[in-house]
């Protein structure tokens, strides 16, 4: 999921962020498609975990990066942005994958203790990513830099 958005173009932050948001939206659409296709082969059996997995990339990914684009577009130039970007995207990827996996197991009528690992890992990565983002924003503010959108 994160492969295609991994190269950061810090000279054109808005363009880079737009690409990230569009990619997340495409992943959300793919997640909805996967759920519907899987339901056809699963004799109509559905799992809430699989049905709602599109929300991770849509809200956790697309919405968060949309807010960054609107409010803090210059954060992309900060030295810690790459770390935030990798860690946060990994969190969304782990949560989406975990949800997909739980959906597969739910539909089959079974479970695995390992699915919890995805949710814990994803949650930790996202928390760490948001802390790094907060640190970047505070650093900018302390330096007196404007974080307003530069069109």
């Amino acid at each position, binding site marked *: *999921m*994160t*492969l295609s958005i*991994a*190269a*950061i173009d810090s000279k054109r932050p808005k363009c880079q962020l737009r690409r990230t948001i569009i990619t997340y939206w495409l992943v959300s659409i793919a997640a909805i498609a996967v759920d519907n296709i899987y339901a056809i082969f699963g*004799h*109509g*059996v*559905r*799992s809430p975990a699989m049905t709602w997995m599109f929300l991770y990339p849509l809200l956790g990914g697309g919405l968060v990066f949309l807010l960054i684009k609107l409010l803090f577009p210059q954060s992309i130039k900060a030295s810690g942005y*790459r*770390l935030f970007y*990798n860690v946060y*995207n*990994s969190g969304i*990827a*782990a949560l989406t*994958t975990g949800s997909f*996996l739980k959906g*597969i*197991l*739910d539909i*089959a*009528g*079974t*479970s*695995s*203790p*390992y*699915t919890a*690992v*995805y949710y814990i890992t994803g949650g930790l990565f996202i928390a760490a990513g948001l802390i790094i983002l907060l640190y970047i924003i505070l650093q900018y503010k302390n330096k007196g830099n404007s974080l307003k959108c530069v069109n």
Partner: protein
Amino acid sequence: MIKFFSKPYRWTVIFTLLLTMSFIFVLLDTFVIPKSIQSVETEPTDTEKAAPELNKSAVVITDNIYKDENIKITIETYREYDTTIYVADVQLTDAAYLKTALAGNTYGRNITEKTSAIAAAHNAVLAVNGDYYGFRDYGYVLRNGTVYRNIARSAGDDEALLVDEEGNFSVFHESQAGIESLYNKNPWQIFSFGPALVKNGQIMVDSTSEISGKSMRSNPRTAIGQISSLHYIFIVSDGRTNESAGLSLFELAQEFKEKDCITAYNLDGGGSSTMYFNGEVINNPTDGRRIKEREVSDIVYCGY
């Protein structure tokens, strides 16, 4: 290390690889890798030792009847609800002839065999698939008097069937009864699937009932019921084919009610649903694409 990962794509490639590998591992661990936990004791139990010698000259076998001095089974096949339904009417002289068997004579996860293979290995006259205990980590497993798993399912999805040493059925909630508290009922078998279809002669499901509330209404089904002491009904229905739509739980319950069952309980269905009689599979088990018998972890059978 931060410098190493700050290069474009490095972190992404490594993390994606780890995620993919872990995903494959969990699927293999859940669905494929066999985990043997306990072998089945092959020493005959007290009830098996007490079983009388069979007079083979008195055995009657036809396409739909098996009859000897201890076991009488009549198979009836008919169409109802756009579905082919297979009903076995079973009368026994002793509960010891109502048995269960585990695939490979082993309790564990992902240890499976076809219903017909397990049945043939145990000289079963009649067999149906069981509750497929090996696909889950929860739910009591007690077979032929031996406890294999004492982990209860959580409330809301925890109706289990107890068959005592007299062969009588009763339904209980696992979350409300520790397995030790059931010992005074002399349990011979416990099945952990459900739901109960009939209790005290009353249908316990309605037209909206479904397993976990999420699967299709009509499916291949397997269920067992009791009419009176040592008199049982086994029902298997086809489904998911052009010829047979399958049954809802309510329709299945109605079948048991019409046959005067006082207790009836749903077992694993779908692709698992199989009925074996006199050495042959008599229904049409399917995975939804073709007629094919699925491997399961356990069976319920009548035999010696």
